[in-house]
């Protein structure tokens, strides 16, 4: 239980890590960085005990993207009921909690503040340690929630609506960004292309579905930034290329169904091939052979398929989270927070909300 730790932390300011490392820990995770309210309870011995998610997709759909103020207003309605739901599912009481982890950034400032305000004050009231977690560290560690998760070190491809990054991960807590998108994130490009093709937000799953009956080879889209060295990405040109293709192929102002599918296919293929080329380079560059993909776009089956083939060709292996843990969720935050709390890290009483936060500045666990 938390009482012993709490008194220790109050007395010493920091918990000596070897002592805690032997004690199992139940950590509540709170994720409110964008348009999903995610809550989970993670046990360092038993694994994930329960989780719950509320997606605001419908709320934002008619606006064609996330409206930050509406997102914040919804988080304040949903967070506490979801915490209750998770505790009930896990058959746990508040007094069973040993720590709280909340997403402190990056993300929408107002949305982050909701999870932070509730999480930090709940921890203060229960007198248990609290930590603000980096959202992308959460994503990056999500595959470790699976039974056969990756061992360290590995290369991580983080692909979501807000990020596209290749990260070298020698150990938990140490991250070196090897390359990233210079403009749009991959998920953002999917959203924009979806809009061009008359598909709803969020675009990823809809574009993938539309691409299924697409004709390979009808359109040849560029693979941006692959013909020069480096691990950075750019999707803005590909987006414009897609837009031009859409306009050129309209007949009387409309695209026929097959052409829509063919464009979706060509776009998705270009994104996937670009990722494959960059990840292969990242293997060569780092000498590593394990590739972890995470973030919303890692749910894309074509991308998974192509990266798995590449990893095999290179004598390595591909890891990814279960579908539920590709997109934003509380489990990954509970897990990442638990690892840091077990290492003795914890925050003071400030409620942290860092809309921009460099992954490389995180303290290591050792």
């Amino acid at each position: 239980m938390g009482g012993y730790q709490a008194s220790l932390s109050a007395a010493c300011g920091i918990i000596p890590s070897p002592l805690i490392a032997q004690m199992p820990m139940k950590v509540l995770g709170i994720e409110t960085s964008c348009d999903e309210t995610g809550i989970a309870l993670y046990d360092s011995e038993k694994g994930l005990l329960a989780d719950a998610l509320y997606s605001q997709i419908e709320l934002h759909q008619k606006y064609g993207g996330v409206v930050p103020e509406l997102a914040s207003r919804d988080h304040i309605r949903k967070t506490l009921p979801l915490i209750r739901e998770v505790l009930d599912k896990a058959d746990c009481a508040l007094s069973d909690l040993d720590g709280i982890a909340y997403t402190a950034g990056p993300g929408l400032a107002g949305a982050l503040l909701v999870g932070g305000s509730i999480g930090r004050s709940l921890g203060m009231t229960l007198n248990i340690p609290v930590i603000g977690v980096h959202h992308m560290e959460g994503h990056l560690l999500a595959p470790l929630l699976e039974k056969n998760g990756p061992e360290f070190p590995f290369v991580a491809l983080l692909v979501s609506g807000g990020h596209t990054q290749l990260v070298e991960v020698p150990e938990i807590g140490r991250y070196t960004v090897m390359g990233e998108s210079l403009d749009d994130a991959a998920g953002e490009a999917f959203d924009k292309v979806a809009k061009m093709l008359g598909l709803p937000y969020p675009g990823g799953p809809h574009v993938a579905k539309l691409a299924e009956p697409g004709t390979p080879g009808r359109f040849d889209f560029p693979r941006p930034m692959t013909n020069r060295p480096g691990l950075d990405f750019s999707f803005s040109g590909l987006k414009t290329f897609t837009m031009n293709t859409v306009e050129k192929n309209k007949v009387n102002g409309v695209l026929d169904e097959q052409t829509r599918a063919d464009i979706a296919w060509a776009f998705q293929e270009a994104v996937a091939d670009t990722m494959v080329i960059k990840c292969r380079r990242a293997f060569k560059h780092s000498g590593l052979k394990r590739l972890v993909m995470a973030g919303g776009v890692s749910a894309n089956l074509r991308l998974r398929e192509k990266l798995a083939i590449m990893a095999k060709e290179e004598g390595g292996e591909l890891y990814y989270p279960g579908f539920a843990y590709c997109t934003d969720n509380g489990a990954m935050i509970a897990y990442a927070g638990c690892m840091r709390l077990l290492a003795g890290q914890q925050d003071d009483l400030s409620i942290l909300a860092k809309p921009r936060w460099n992954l490389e500045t995180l303290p290591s666990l050792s």
Partner: protein
Amino acid sequence: MPIILAIDTSTQACSCALNRDGIIIERFEIIPRQHADRLLSMIDDLMNDQALVYSDLDAVAYGQGPGSFTGLRIAAGVTQGIAFGANIPVVPISSLASMALQVGKSEIDIVFSTLDARINEVYWGIYSVEGKRVSLIGNEGLCKPEDLPPCVSGNPVSLIGVGSGLEFLNRMPEVYKEILSDKILSIYPRAGTMAELAVEYFLQGLVKQPEEVSPVYLRDNVAKVSVK
């Protein structure tokens, strides 16, 4: 008497207060954009100073608004965290009522409580204040200063104006300028007066569960439907 913790972050002021047997102990700071950073330390300091733990509390009162959206959610979130953690109810208090109470005297005053709502609008409410009792006349509103009702509810002969919305006084209908007997722009919502009001509400059973905490924004048209 119940012990009540009150929290307010609806404006640039950040405050927390305890009501113990009618005695108010308050922490009040004007710290724009630092509420998230400072609020919990202020509460912790107040509780330690009074040698209280959270299980000693009977309820948490909070400034429900109107005010800064982000500020309202910080108070709402912190209230939820504390009340849920301590398994106690919450008491929502209007920021405008908290301001009106600060000018309460023994006789009945009519107070025009108003806050700058940005984009050329004001939040406002007309309150009848008698000593420590505050009652809202009509409803709280949000409008351009020019669009305030042309007659003040109850047709009072004099009006005390409080709050930052008075910056827009020269744009308000004539009657507000004519009957304004006193104006105090520097009055902010504060947890001390909220803690006073909250005890009354608490004893009357006007409490809510932590899940029901819901900021009163007054401004609800915050998004435009995309044309495309």
